[in-house]
């Protein structure tokens, strides 16, 4: 009973928030609505017993990703209204039909595949975090390490791309040019 109430409440809230995020013309409204929707999605993870994922969802999306977007929006002109695209009518039509077919397939899929058995079943007497850790560090150890390397690459890419002085490269200049650039920089600071 309470599960049903919670599900419908959060389903309604999430849908409304994401709809606002997609439809509004103000970039700041879209950012706020998206952050709220992310928090509401974590509620589904808690209802489904995936406590670890719920915490991760709040920390990563509402903490890191939204902070990154807010940081990025400082660079862009966010106060003006966002221009909308008058899309090609045929593309919109085709994608709508695709979505409808997707709904039908999703309705029928669980009936077709009734005889699925669990590959990594839940362990009795262990918490969700413990279960996840047991599977993650045995069967999925290599993908976990690859994901870690990918995050490192993304971090370096972010630093290199968003760093200042994109036209200058310290590794390609000789010593005299580097000293010259430093002197110019000091002049700018002093003046």
């Amino acid at each position: 009973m309470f599960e049903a109430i919670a599900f419908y409440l959060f389903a309604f809230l999430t849908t409304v928030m994401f709809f606002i995020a997609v439809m509004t013309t103000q970039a700041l409204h879209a950012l706020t609505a998206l952050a709220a929707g992310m928090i509401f999605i974590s509620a589904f993870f808690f209802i489904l017993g995936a406590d670890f994922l719920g915490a991760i969802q709040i920390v990563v999306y509402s903490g890191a990703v939204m902070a990154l977007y807010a940081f990025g929006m400082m660079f862009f002109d966010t106060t003006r209204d966002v221009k909308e695209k008058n899309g090609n009518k045929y593309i919109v039509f085709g994608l709508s039909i695709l979505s409808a077919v997707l709904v039908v397939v999703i309705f029928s899929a669980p009936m077709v595949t009734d005889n699925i058995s669990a590959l990594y079943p839940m362990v009795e007497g262990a918490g969700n975090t413990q279960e996840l850790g047991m599977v993650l560090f045995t069967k999925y150890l290599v993908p976990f390490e690859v994901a870690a390397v990918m995050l490192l690459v993304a971090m370096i890419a972010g630093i290199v791309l968003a760093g200042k002085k994109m036209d200058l490269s310290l590794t390609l200049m000789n010593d005299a040019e580097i000293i010259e650039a430093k002197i110019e920089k000091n002049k700018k600071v002093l003046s």
Partner: protein
Amino acid sequence: MEIGLNHYLVLSTLLFAIGLIGVMRRKNLLLLFFATEILLNSVNIAFAAISHYYGDLTGQLFVFFVIAIAASEVAVGLGLLIVWHKRHGNIDLDNMSTMRG
């Protein structure tokens, strides 16, 4: 009333459709990224629900990796967006029709 797997899958489809609408109608690249996040999150809900109702942990691990990929996508995408905005002064999709660099 019991909440079953179908409820979650329909909700996931609904959110995915909202994300698709966003991808179709947005011209600003930053708001296009928002729509992409919505797409990824709708799929995450479906994974978690299937993981719960079939008693299998693989779905939750996939959600874990999808979140990692989304985080790195945001970092690289925003970096590229900032570089573009420094050079051209806007982030509209219409001005990116050429690949002259």
